[in-house]
């Protein structure tokens, strides 16, 4: 059975007389333990799909089910223990006046997780390759890539089953990207995690994902499996254009 099932999802924002149809009639399903990618044009609704799963976007049609159950409204605590999101914009998603220690220990406190919070924070810093000395720094004292690693560490604190990753490595250099991708793959294998991840880099998607959905103008254009992606087996013009514009990252 699929762990994440999205059927005919539509999201429409209303802002001052404008209707923005960010997502139109998109369906996808992600199996338990699968890693599923979303790629496509900037503004095509990728982040909005992840936000809709978390209850952070105005859904105007369709259904979202996790493990067979329609998601509750509001999402509530059980949901956030199961599903965590790493946001695209690491600056905006970290509280500017909280130290990393607080950023990382807060989810444990909110959810009443027992145990040694100190050790959990140190372990989390180790896991994403940040020095323990950073523990009492504030987000503005970190580089862009260091902040992104904090965001990933925070999402993993509650040991969720599903992680929604919005451009998790686009702010990272090649070596940290490799570390973070390896970390995500290892955690997925060890903890049986399920990923739904957005990336603009087809090489990252190829490396991480079993299937990928190509999006444009709020709609699903084409779903590709891993072999189709690597073997240029796409059928639509748009998916092919993306592939061909990525010539510099082919083997």
């Amino acid at each position, binding site marked *: 059975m699929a762990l994440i099932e999205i059927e005919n999802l539509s999201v429409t924002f209303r802002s001052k007389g404008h209707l923005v149809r960010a997502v139109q009639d998109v369906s996808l399903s992600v199996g338990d333990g699968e890693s599923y990618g979303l790629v496509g044009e900037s503004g095509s609704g990728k982040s909005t799909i992840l936000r809709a799963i978390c209850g952070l976007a105005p859904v105007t049609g369709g259904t979202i089910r996790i493990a067979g159950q329609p998601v509750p409204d509001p999402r509530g605590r059980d949901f956030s223990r199961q599903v965590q999101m790493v946001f695209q914009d690491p600056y905006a998603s970290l509280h500017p006046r909280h130290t990393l220690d607080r950023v990382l220990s807060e989810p444990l406190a909110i959810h009443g997780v027992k145990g040694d919070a100190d050790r959990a924070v140190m372990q989390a810093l180790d896991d994403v390759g940040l020095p323990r000395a950073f523990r009492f720094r504030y987000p503005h004292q970190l580089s862009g890539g260091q902040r992104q690693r904090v965001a990933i560490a925070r999402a993993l604190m509650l040991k969720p089953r599903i992680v929604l990753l919005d451009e998790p490595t686009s702010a990272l250099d090649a070596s940290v990207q490799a570390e973070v991708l390896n970390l995500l793959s290892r955690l997925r294998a060890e903890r049986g995690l399920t990923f739904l991840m957005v990336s603009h880099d087809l090489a990252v998607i*190829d490396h991480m994902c079993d299937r990928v959905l190509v999006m444009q103008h709020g709609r699903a254009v084409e779903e590709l499996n891993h072999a189709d992606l690597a073997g240029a087996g796409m059928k639509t013009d748009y998916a092919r254009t993306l592939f061909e514009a990525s010539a510099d990252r082919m083997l």
Partner: protein
Amino acid sequence: MSDLLTIRDLRVTFDTETGPVEAVRGVSFRLGRERLGIVGESGSGKTITGRSVLRLIRPPGRIEAAEMTFDGIDLTRISEREMRALRGPRIAMVMQDPKYSLNPVMKVGAQLTEGLRLRDRLGAAEARRKAIEALEAVQIRDPERVMEAYPHELSGGMGQRVMIAMMLIPNPDLLIADEPTSALDVTVQAEVLSILDGLVRDRGMGLIFISHDLRLVARFCDRVLVMYKGRIVEEVAAGELTRAKHPYTQGLLNCLPRIGGSRAPLPGLDRDADWARA
């Protein structure tokens, strides 16, 4: 051709609770009317180097430099007021976190037209026309809607493009672009790069292009500086980047996944090697 920007022995230090952090440790380079890439791992000092040129380092950060000259102007000497007059019209920077640099409570249109109205004294209609043109140039599909939107109503890549549009409107002589296309898909990215390219070629703008994307820098820039722990460890012609000599640069290139490549764990960077002890 004279240099647009000369930086000699730039040092930036932050005093933190756990002692001083030397973010930039003796960086020197010259920039002509060309595309200069800066690459290097996270935390290597790329952003701080870029911000130093604009003197945008807040205390407890300190900038020291033997020389920072922009178009004959000594950036280490001029007053804060003179510096403010350079920022924007002559030296612009596209920040790494676009949404953080946009005013969250002001509509995109008002932010784009502000400078045109105050500085260039354009009328409302003319400023609006120019702003919409700038949005169209960066491939925003529905510029009218985006003019009326607040920053939080934009996608990641749209925010990035709004920033680029805003920085390019005053026609700066020097653009420092910090990860300007990291949130863009490859086809929109190609359009944005061709705009930057046109400005360098046709208007003689100088461009400092900070990026993690080694393959992008290799095909887009003229020259590349490779930074590690606050220092420049290598300078190469962009076309030679993928054949770079320095083991650190080679190490970074080896970490990259490839379409159709192996899905085994990616190689890491050997941080115990000799070069890493510098």
